[in-house]
């Protein structure tokens, strides 16, 4: 009797275990999405509804970053730069050639995809601090170019763009548009992570050399992860610019990247719904503390340090872990 057949029951058990955990993750994430979908009905003030839309923008960008940083282990400090590229693609097309927002957003996806592919291709030999530094430099170059090309982008003045839904439509329209996009993106991420490709990406995170030794095309999958993550950030930027109606280089500051990364980290890196939870809790929180004259970034950065130092799983991650322990231990 060969050893494979002997081990089969154990192998099956392990596989079932993994599948059950995945199903749990999916159920939890869907529940959270459902809560998110119903929530704004109870929020009456237009201001707080606007805040919720902003929260969804950050959440979408954080989902994009999480795909790269959380699952693939490639630490990029450029998510806000890709949001900025997405914003300006749609804004410039709308400003100069009167492209409708829908096509503009589509082009944001294309342009960030191409740039992400190129930058990913460039960065694929680098890892760890080297990659972080390159992306930091890239983010600053993008911002400088946009700031100093006055005659095209009007520099710091910003570019006004038409809103996605003309006239004075309620924030709820934008909220549900963002939510729809987030549901689709989450579905895509879930299917990707579940698939063979997801295993490739996670194996690169855990040990690049070993993954390449087992035949994973590290070069290609790293580039792929980078490009896909950039596309999600670009989509977030393209949508957002038509919500606030103004494209400004301010949105590409390293601080903004810090916000996006912080949301993914505090919500739970490398989990499905972590970035969404992080974004939806932290953005309203930061608006709330602003009323007391406290700078939200102080609290925010402090939370990042505390979470990464003492509490690696983050909010959603530890909730999931507790639930898993409950189910499997008793």
């Amino acid at each position, binding site marked *: 009797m060969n050893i494979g057949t002997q081990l089969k029951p154990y192998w099956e058990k392990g596989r079932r275990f993994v599948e059950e955990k995945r199903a749990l993750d999916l159920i939890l994430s869907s529940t959270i999405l459902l809560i998110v979908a119903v929530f704004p009905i109870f929020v009456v003030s237009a201001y707080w509804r606007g805040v919720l839309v902003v929260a969804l923008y950050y959440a979408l960008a954080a989902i994009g970053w999480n795909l790269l940083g959380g699952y693939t*282990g490639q630490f990029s400090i450029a998510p806000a730069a890709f949001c900025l590229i997405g914003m300006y693609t749609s804004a410039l097309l709308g400003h100069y050639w009167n492209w409708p927002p829908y096509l503009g957003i589509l082009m944001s996806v294309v342009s960030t995809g191409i740039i992400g592919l190129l930058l990913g291709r460039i960065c694929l030999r680098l890892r760890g601090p080297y990659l972080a530094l390159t992306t930091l430099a890239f983010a*600053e170059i993008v911002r400088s170019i946009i700031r100093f090309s006055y005659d095209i982008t009007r520099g710091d003045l910003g570019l006004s763009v038409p809103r996605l839904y003309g006239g004075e439509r309620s924030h709820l329209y934008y909220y549900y548009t963002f939510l729809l996009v987030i549901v689709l993106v989450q579905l895509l991420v879930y299917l990707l992570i579940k698939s063979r490709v997801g295993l490739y990406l996670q194996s690169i995170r855990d040990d690049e050399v070993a993954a390449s030794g087992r035949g994973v095309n590290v070069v290609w999958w790293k580039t792929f992860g980078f490009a896909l993550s950039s596309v999600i950030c670009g989509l977030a930027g393209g949508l957002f610019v038509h919500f606030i109606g103004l494209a400004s280089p301010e949105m590409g500051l390293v601080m903004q990247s*810090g916000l996006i*990364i912080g949301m993914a980290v505090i919500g739970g890196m490398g989990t499905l719904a972590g970035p969404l939870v992080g974004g939806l809790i932290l953005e309203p929180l930061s608006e709330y503390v602003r009323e007391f004259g406290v700078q939200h970034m102080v609290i925010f950065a402090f939370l990042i340090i505390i979470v990464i130092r003492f509490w690696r799983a983050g909010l959603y991650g530890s909730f999931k872990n507790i639930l898993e322990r409950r189910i499997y231990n008793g």
Partner: protein
Amino acid sequence: MDILITGIMMGTFYALLALGLSLIFGILKVVNFAHGEFFMIGAYAYALIALKLGISPFLVLFPVIVIGMIVGVAVERVLMRPLYEKYTEWGAMRDEYAIIVTFGLSLFLMNLANQIFGPYPISGPGLVPLRERVTLGHMVMMSAHRIIAFGIGAGVLIAAYLFLRFAPSGKVIQAVSQNRFGASIAGINSSRVSMIVFGISGTLAGLSGALLCPIFSAEPFVGALPAIKSFVIVVLGGMGSVPGSILGAYLLGVLEQFGAVYISYSYRDTFGFVILILVLLLRPQGIFGEKAREV
């Protein structure tokens, strides 16, 4: 000629900054993204102590050194410990932890300074009154403060270099940066060495912040650009290489000044980034660095 001298002067301050960063990279193989905030703390400490207490600016440099050292050591003790406690377990996650934690720290200190001192720049007094100017030869003229600050900076730089090269404890630092495990086997307490290196790094960054304070003024985000420049320098000279980072600093200082004059002033700070990306692409190990090898 004027440009060259200004470039060399800026190079000295960059070297002070980059040396600390390079030492930390050598010891822990991580990049400290909060390095610019050490610089900012130095600048604030200098401006506030000099303005509030009104003592001679030369004496203020000593508390600045102490504060820089305390900040460095505190950061290492509180945030960097898990790095070597779990040196082998974490594998690839080490990098991520270090980047996120120092990046978070950088955001935290920046915004804390903004919260406490407000966004307005505080200008510190010069080591000598700023109006006094010195003429070198017949064409170069610059403020006496710059000359004295340059002198102090160059002195500290030479002292730091000699310390690392010849002093027994400097050799211990080199040993740990070459091979952490080997050094531990030889009886070196590498955790303590890391602490000392962070102390030195904080001191150098704080000192360069204090020396540049009358020129740049202390404000919450003053550290961001110098920090990015010292990243460029460290990469340019080879990560973890001490002579590399000093040479890289002078190279960048001079290049930047020439670029600002002959190409465009508004893109001055972008040159550094372009250099960074080019170096990372063409020669990731830098001028003096060794190629990273993995087992």
